[in-house]
């Protein structure tokens, strides 16, 4: 009988009535035992029953939740299957454009029809079960039980920890530390932080909160605590190490409108890739951008060229790989621009359109300021600014006076918005009505002059790319009309002088006119609806503080406004960064170390591992160990890391699978949507007496209440109807936020079937009573689909024009051109400029460290994100370690063989780090590649003396014994290059940063390779 069932199922015959009648014995078995038992009788049919295989969404007892991933920041959808309280499987969300190569299923598809649909998500996401259930997770709050940095911890009761953090005091008296530790309450004062420099703000700024992998909603939740409730300006992100370099160039190009701009992977015919690891690490990620590029390239619809010191995985389908010298993206781009101008291949019609109206008339959604006149007379009070009509005639009405000025074809001046076309490459001396002569040049002329400072041979030399190859790429790039664009990312500018490397890369798109066009260079379209306003005001509250003073990082603040400047002039003690996108965690840490411009009192880190993740982060070990520089350090995290081993308290947090509510808007390019992240399973951390999970939110709420800060507790959230609502638990904030999105996007109410789906599967449903029935049903419509994805790709365009585009881009950036270098006191160039990687004190790294023959570049792998993915067990099986990757000819010259043990040493770290050499043809000669995910000393890699460790770690006795955490050698493999990165001896030996934007350096460190 069993055999007959086998033959039915094995033949693939459906068990329809006819089949059963034919094979009556089998039918009999089914009728007798029921289909489940009949199936159980044939184990091979489900061999996984023997092997603990994952139940699927269709198995009994499975709960399915559509949410958003956070294995990296790409923001893809996930379909999570939870069975018996355990996350068993992540796959994609078929409603989400990022899981469906920009073309998802119709948004109104009933959710029941989607459960059998295939939908892809990358390997990082699929390792989610090992992340959330990781045995090394800390689930109880810890307080250090030895000297700072001794690595000794003991559990502390939640309530006690809240009291200690809120009130401070002699918290470590029992360890022999007599000092009084400041509490949050002590910083709740308007006393100046430095009475002789009032511009620095109040003592509130003494709280420094740095968020690592923070996203929308959780970020604002911490803002609510740090900025609004306490009033510290120091809630700092980590954009700098995320890749602020290319963002700086885009920011200059877009005049701050967007920092992420990319080639359209669905519409482009040619993509020129600068420093973007598009097959491993881009945002949108592996299952989106990469998948689209690969699929379209296989169909012959798209070609791409990689400009990078490493060939990257994308070399597999690339038209060409151009092995670039590290730090020379700008040289390559300026070489291409030189060729384009010399060969008259730029889109002059587009560049000559001086206004939005004029550009629109010729089919463009965007215009440039290429034809706008810039005052180049240094003595003019408005020098380096755009010439305005009022500069020529102060008597014109205000609205006319503000207009930019262009030269018409017949050499007359005109307001930019009054002509269809203007002179592009021109200069003139104009006379104002007062008779003053004003020397002006067009933006294009200024840009061109900067490019012409060097010829193609120079650019070939700087970039290390043969002249013929630069020409070939330039010709290719200009051969697709506007269906070509650049995709630049982390690598294109993540080094000192990176702003001037990535600006010319962005400029390439303006030259061919592909900005804001289908198939061109586009920003993201934004979210589907606001989450922090609408039905509930989550932006602010009564009694919210106003911020004063510069952040510790000195970002977005001019040195010239300080007392220090008035006293000392140039140079400043450390650089200031008025022209920065911000999020400078590196300079915040360095500011903390140097107590500049003022000292830090309390440091809170969230999901942030600077010692490991910052190039040169090892320097901060001495900062964090120092209780004068960091009087109180609280880490909110899921595990013990290389950084929070120096913490005073460790607050256990949730992973993105049990918490991290969020509203995830798209990355560039093009799309407009809001993914909604809610928990897919119940929290695994401990709980407070009233049942809330230990987490960032619970911590901040409880500290705020204990310290008497506003904005938390009862009556903290104002409804549209004027009613006040409490903020005592995370959901009080986030579920109302979801309701804002659902109402703002005008979603329909979910069907009863979908309401049931949400209520039976989604943990957040148990809080539904805080919403009205109508609000909840609307929320269910969004939750059942994992967000609001109500636009098709085509809906983002008006013919070829991007509807949510930049509108205008800058060939000359007035703000940058008017900003001064706080070290030299000189103006920065407002347009392109060739600058090799140079320290703020003017040292060119390639020259000062020329005795160190190799330049190191790091990169992200497809199965890793940052420090945390060492917890991804399956990924670590696929790639158990990393290597010191070296060109085979370099290795041969040194007599090195594959897998030889070596160490790499830099001037800043002569002890160096060890690793194994891997020979490759996929890296430029003279370069070394090291992926950025290995060489851990914590995250389970070392023993940590934690009292009652079996109760502190999620894995209990599997990872802990009476001496604490048991080390796992699988977590300690490989090499972390950040421990060798060059430091800047001119600035207290802290990590090198770029003087314009505060870009940390990932590409300029030179090393020696020493055989062990």
């Amino acid at each position: 009988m069993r055999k007959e069932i086998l033959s039915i199922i094995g033949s693939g015959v459906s068990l329809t009535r006819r089949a059963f009648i034919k094979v009556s014995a089998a039918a009999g078995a089914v009728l007798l035992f029921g289909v489940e038992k009949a199936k159980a009788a044939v184990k091979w049919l489900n061999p996984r029953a023997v092997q603990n295989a994952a139940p699927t969404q269709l198995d009994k007892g499975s709960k399915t939740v559509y949410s958003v991933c956070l294995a990296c920041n790409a923001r893809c959808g996930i379909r999570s299957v939870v069975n018996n309280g355990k996350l068993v499987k992540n796959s994609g969300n078929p409603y989400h454009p990022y899981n469906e190569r920009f073309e998802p299923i119709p948004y109104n598809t009933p959710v029941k029809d989607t459960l059998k649909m295939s939908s892809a998500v990358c390997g990082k996401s699929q390792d989610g079960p090992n992340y959330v259930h990781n045995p090394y997770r800390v689930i109880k709050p810890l307080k250090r039980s030895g000297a700072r940095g001794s690595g000794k911890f003991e559990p502390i009761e939640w309530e006690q920890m809240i009291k200690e953090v809120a009130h401070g005091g002699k918290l470590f008296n029992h360890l022999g530390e007599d000092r009084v530790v400041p509490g949050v309450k002590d910083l709740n004062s308007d006393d100046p932080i430095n009475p002789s420099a009032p511009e620095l703000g109040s003592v509130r700024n003494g709280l420094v909160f740095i968020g690592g992998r923070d996203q929308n909603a959780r970020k604002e939740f911490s803002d609510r605590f740090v900025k609004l409730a306490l009033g510290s300006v120091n809630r700092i992100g980590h954009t700098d190490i995320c890749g602020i370099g290319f963002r700086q160039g885009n920011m200059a190009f877009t005049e701050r409108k967007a920092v992420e701009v990319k080639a359209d992977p669905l519409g482009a015919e040619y993509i020129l890739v600068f420093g973007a690891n598009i097959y491993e690490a881009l945002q949108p990620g592996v299952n989106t951008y990469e998948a689209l590029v690969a699929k379209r390239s296989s169909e012959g619809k798209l070609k791409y060229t990689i400009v990078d010191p490493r060939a990257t995985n994308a070399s597999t389908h690339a038209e060409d790989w151009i092995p670039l010298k590290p730090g020379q993206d700008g040289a390559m781009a300026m070489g291409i621009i030189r060729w384009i101008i010399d060969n008259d291949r730029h889109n002059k019609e587009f560049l000559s359109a001086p206004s939005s109206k004029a550009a629109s008339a010729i089919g463009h959604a965007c215009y440039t300021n290429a034809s706008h006149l810039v005052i180049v007379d240094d003595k003019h009070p408005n020098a380096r600014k755009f010439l305005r009509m009022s500069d020529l005639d102060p008597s014109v009405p205000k609205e006319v006076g503000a207009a930019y000025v262009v030269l018409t074809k017949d050499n007359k001046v005109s307001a930019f918005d009054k002509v269809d076309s203007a002179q592009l490459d021109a200069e003139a001396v104009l006379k104002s009505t007062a008779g003053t002569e004003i020397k002006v040049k067009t933006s294009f002329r200024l840009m061109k002059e900067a490019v012409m400072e060097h010829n193609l041979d120079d650019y070939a030399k700087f970039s290390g790319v043969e002249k013929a190859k630069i020409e070939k790429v330039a010709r290719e790039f200009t051969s697709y009309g506007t269906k070509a664009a650049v995709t630049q990312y982390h690598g294109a500018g993540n080094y000192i002088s990176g702003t001037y490397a990535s600006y010319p890369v962005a400029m390439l798109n303006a030259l061919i006119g592909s900005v804001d066009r289908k198939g061109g260079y586009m920003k993201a379209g934004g979210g589907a609806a606001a989450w922090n306003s609408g039905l509930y005001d989550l932006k602010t509250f009564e009694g919210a503080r106003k911020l004063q003073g510069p952040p510790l990082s000195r970002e977005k603040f001019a040195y010239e406004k300080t007392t220090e400047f008035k006293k000392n002039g140039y140079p400043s003690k450390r650089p200031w960064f008025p022209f920065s996108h911000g999020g400078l965690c590196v300079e915040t840490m360095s500011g903390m170390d140097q107590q500049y411009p003022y000292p830090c009192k309390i440091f809170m880190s969230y999901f942030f591992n600077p010692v490991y993740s910052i190039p040169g982060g090892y320097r901060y070990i001495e900062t964090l160990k120092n209780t004068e520089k960091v009087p109180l350090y609280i880490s909110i995290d899921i595990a013990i890391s290389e950084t929070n081993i120096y913490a005073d308290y460790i607050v256990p947090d949730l992973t993105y699978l049990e918490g991290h509510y969020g509203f995830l808007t798209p990355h560039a390019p093009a799309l407009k949507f809001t993914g909604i992240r809610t928990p897919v399973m119940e929290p695994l951390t401990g709980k407070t007496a009233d049942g809330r999970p230990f987490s960032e939110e619970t911590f901040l709420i409880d500290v705020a209440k204990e310290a008497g800060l506003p904005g938390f507790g009862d009556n903290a959230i104002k409804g549209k109807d004027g009613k006040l609502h409490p903020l005592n638990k995370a959901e009080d904030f986030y579920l109302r936020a979801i309701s804002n999105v659902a109402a703002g996007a005008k979603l329909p109410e979910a069907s009863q079937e979908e309401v049931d789906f949400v209520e039976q599967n989604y943990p957040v449903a148990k809080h539904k009573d805080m919403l009205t029935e109508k609000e909840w049903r609307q929320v269910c419509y969004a939750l059942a689909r994992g967000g609001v994805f109500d636009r098709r790709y085509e809906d983002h365009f008006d013919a070829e024009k991007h509807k949510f585009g930049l509108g205008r881009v800058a060939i000359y950036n007035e703000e940058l051109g008017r900003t001064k270098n706080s070290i030299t006191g000189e103006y920065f160039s407002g347009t392109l400029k060739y600058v090799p990687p140079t320290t703020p004190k003017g040292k060119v790294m390639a020259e000062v460290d020329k005795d160190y023959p190799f330049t190191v570049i790091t990169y992200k792998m497809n199965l890793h994100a940052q420090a945390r993915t060492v917890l991804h067990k399956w990924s670590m099986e696929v790639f158990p370690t990393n290597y010191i990757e070296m060109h085979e000819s370099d290795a041969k010259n040194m007599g090195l063989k594959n897998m030889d043990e070596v160490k790499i040493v830099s001037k800043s770290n002569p002890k160096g780090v060890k690793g194994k050499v891997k020979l490759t043809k996929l890296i430029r000669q003279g370069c070394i590649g090291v992926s950025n995910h290995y060489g851990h000393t914590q995250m389970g890699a070392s023993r940590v003396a934690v009292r009652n460790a079996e109760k502190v770690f999620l894995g209990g006795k599997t990872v802990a014994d009476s001496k604490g955490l048991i080390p796992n050698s699988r977590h300690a493999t490989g090499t972390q290059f950040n421990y060798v990165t060059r430091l800047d001896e001119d600035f207290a030996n802290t990590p090198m940063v770029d003087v314009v934007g505060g870009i940390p350096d990932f590409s300029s460190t030179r090393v020696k390779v020493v055989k062990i």
Partner: protein
Amino acid sequence: MDQSGNDRRLFMKNGLIAAAGVITLGTVSGAAEAAKTKKYAMIIDLNRCTGCQSCVIACKAQNDTLIDHFNTKVVSLEDGNYPSSRVVYTPVQCNQCENPPCVPACPLKATFKLANGIVVTDWDKCVGLGACVPACPYGARFLDTRHKGQVGGKVDKCDFCVNRLEQGLMPACVEACASKARLFGDVNAPEGEFAEYLKRTDLVTPKAHLKIKTSIRYVPNRRSKKGGSL
């Protein structure tokens, strides 16, 4: 949405087991559906494979294979001379051979091929002799030491996620392949892009010199001299 061979509805329409149909057996009346024999196959287009490893992790997640062992892997190969060098990726797994050499190698007849093309193991019969492991010319089989001495679970390899197929789901690796490098379906009733690919004349079998007919075939990487690790 494209109408690829990995059409989500493929299995809803042609479910291997219509479980609901079985349960309602007593009440369904009318003409019975025609029985249709399925034969599963996979085509892997190396012009689409990005080496992302998503299929490898999906397989791990679905099949809980022994630590450091995989039912599918992605082999990478450096091809060409610098600077015209590139990497080429080739996903590999059990090829579900037409005449599988592993089958006769088992003295207990514990492993055999189903009419639908999938080579499976009878877990009641397998005692972990391991004779089939070296018999596989592709190295697709391995002993799962966790189950030594127990019934079942002694030798593991890819089975196209037969348990998922039974539920009307795609194999985990196919679902995870965002660039659609893995095309999967029923050769007797192919649909969408899978059907288009079946017609291609440039399909190759792995280790072609062995002249084994396999259920997995490849489109070589056209930019690579070697085409892949084939």
